[in-house]
């Protein structure tokens, strides 16, 4: 195996966030490094994501997008770096964060019903032994209503299509009633109707002054869906408002020049 290449390249515009940036950010990352083996999956990534915005984390396969999200939430251990959520340590901010994992990360043959999955969103309220009350069920149903899945409440989760599974996961996040929503590829492998339903819900969250951060694959929809982007390929390439940062130059830097120019021409890029 080749030795890891860890030398720092000078990156224009990349600077560590100031204490003020960190306090004002919804999610602030400082020098996050994660490694699963010899090669780092994420290397020294800084970011200060604005509050009340829709943020896309963009990069090629294997760029460490999901890993960055998991490291920010403490799901995978980081080698270095620190995380602040609304200026707080993760442990103190757990009630303010909702996480939607990749749909394929769980076994949908698990013996449980749709409504039970949504009720999992109340775990921090219920703890170990507090009784589940009628109010909880009503709130869970209301969350299913918002994603258009109310009719499926009593279904076994294995009977759902991929898009329906994704909506159930989103309903669980809504049940958490958080301020920061972190979603890992919410649009991967879902049908157009589901994509529309999900983006509508995410926009209502933004209207309600929440922050939404998505690991996102589809470059064609970035400009329409998101107002802030974080481009990474193991390291951070660029971060900023979509209108100024989602440029052909930054994309080519992120994808290592592997994007066809005809493909880039079709994107709604900023100049």
């Amino acid at each position, binding site marked *: 195996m080749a030795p890891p290449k860890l030398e720092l390249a000078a990156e224009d515009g990349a600077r560590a966030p100031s204490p003020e940036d960190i306090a004002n950010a919804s999610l602030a990352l400082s020098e996050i490094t994660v490694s699963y083996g010899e090669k780092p999956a994420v290397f020294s990534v800084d970011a200060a994501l604005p509050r009340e915005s829709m943020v896309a984390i963009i990069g090629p396969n294997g760029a460490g997008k999901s890993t960055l999200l998991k490291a920010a939430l*403490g799901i995978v251990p980081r080698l270095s770096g620190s995380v602040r959520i609304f200026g707080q340590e993760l442990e103190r901010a757990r009630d303010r964060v909702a996480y939607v994992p990749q749909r394929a990360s*769980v076994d*949908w*043959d698990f*013996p*449980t019903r749709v409504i039970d999955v949504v009720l999992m969103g109340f775990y921090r309220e219920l703890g170990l032994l507090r009784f589940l009350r009628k109010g909880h069920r009503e709130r869970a149903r209301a969350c299913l209503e918002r994603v258009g899945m109310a009719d499926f409440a009593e279904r076994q989760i*294995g009977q759902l299509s991929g898009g329906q599974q994704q909506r159930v996961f989103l309903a669980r996040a809504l049940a958490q009633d958080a301020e920061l929503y972190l979603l890992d590829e919410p649009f991967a492998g879902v049908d157009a109707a589901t994509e529309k339903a999900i983006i509508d819900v995410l926009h209502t969250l933004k209207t309600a002054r929440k922050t939404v951060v998505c690991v996102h694959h589809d470059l064609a929809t970035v400009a329409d869906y998101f107002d802030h982007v974080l481009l990474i390929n193991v390291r951070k390439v660029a971060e900023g408002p979509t209108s100024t940062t989602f440029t052909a130059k930054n994309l080519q830097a992120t994808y290592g020049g592997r994007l066809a120019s005809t493909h880039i021409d079709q994107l709604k890029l900023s100049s």
Partner: protein
Amino acid sequence: MDGFLQLSLTPILIGILSAIACALPGNFLILRRQALIGDAISHVVLPGIVVAFLATGVIAALPMLVGAAGAALVAVILIETIKRVGRIEPGAAMGVVFTSMFAAGVLLLEQTDTSAVHLDVEHALMGNLESLIWFDATGWGSLVDPVALAGLPPELPRIAVVAAVIAVLAFVFWRPLKLSTFDEGFAATVGVPTRTIGLALVAASAVAAVAAFDAVGSIIVIAMFICPPAAARLMTNRLEAQVGWSVVFATLSAIVGYVLAGYGPLWFGAQNAVSAAGMIAAVSGVILAIACLAAPHRRRIGAAQGQG
């Protein structure tokens, strides 16, 4: 009836409690795709139990548990070492370690003088359920007679305590256990200590395996971990009901297995009874087979889902 109390009541109770103590954690092991951990544990505890006996000279609950825990630790270290040094895939490393340790346990046991206690190769493999009899029982009145109760085989209170503790733990930690089994990443983000929960599940399984050692031996105990929960999964699509069914199937296997082993051969004109542990495991396998053919939720309904 005295014969039933003396000869059959305690073995049946020990069989039932062993089956339940194993089936409860077995539900979660299966859903976590860790069914083989139950197998590994059941093999690895044997050398631990033998070494504990050699060190203390008695068969008692605490030294056995300590010995089994020590053996499990050695196994984990060996598996990690083989994985790293030999660059062998984890499944193969586990297979090598737990069968070798089990073999070492058998050899050790063979060379040890254990004639004074119920510990020899045959018992280690197949349990000694039939020998756990209650001499002091003279009639139903013995069930409330403290003197007679004191003569109960110590294996019975031991497995009763283990089964009760596992049941209480499963009840108290139901939510984090279910949550981290279904979606470990999400569980971690809401503050569930997923690593601790996973380790505690394996530890509870190890304790159940050690406690069930008397009843069914260290090989057949794997059937108690897997068969009742696997059959139960086919009966329902709700975890709560699945665990309920697994307890029903575990109990049924123990009772039917013991009775068939004791009386079955006589019905066919044979002279001797057969191994109760073997029959209990066989019955639990038959229950699983019937569930596969006839249970209401036997299809893997998740199999035909979309891309992902």
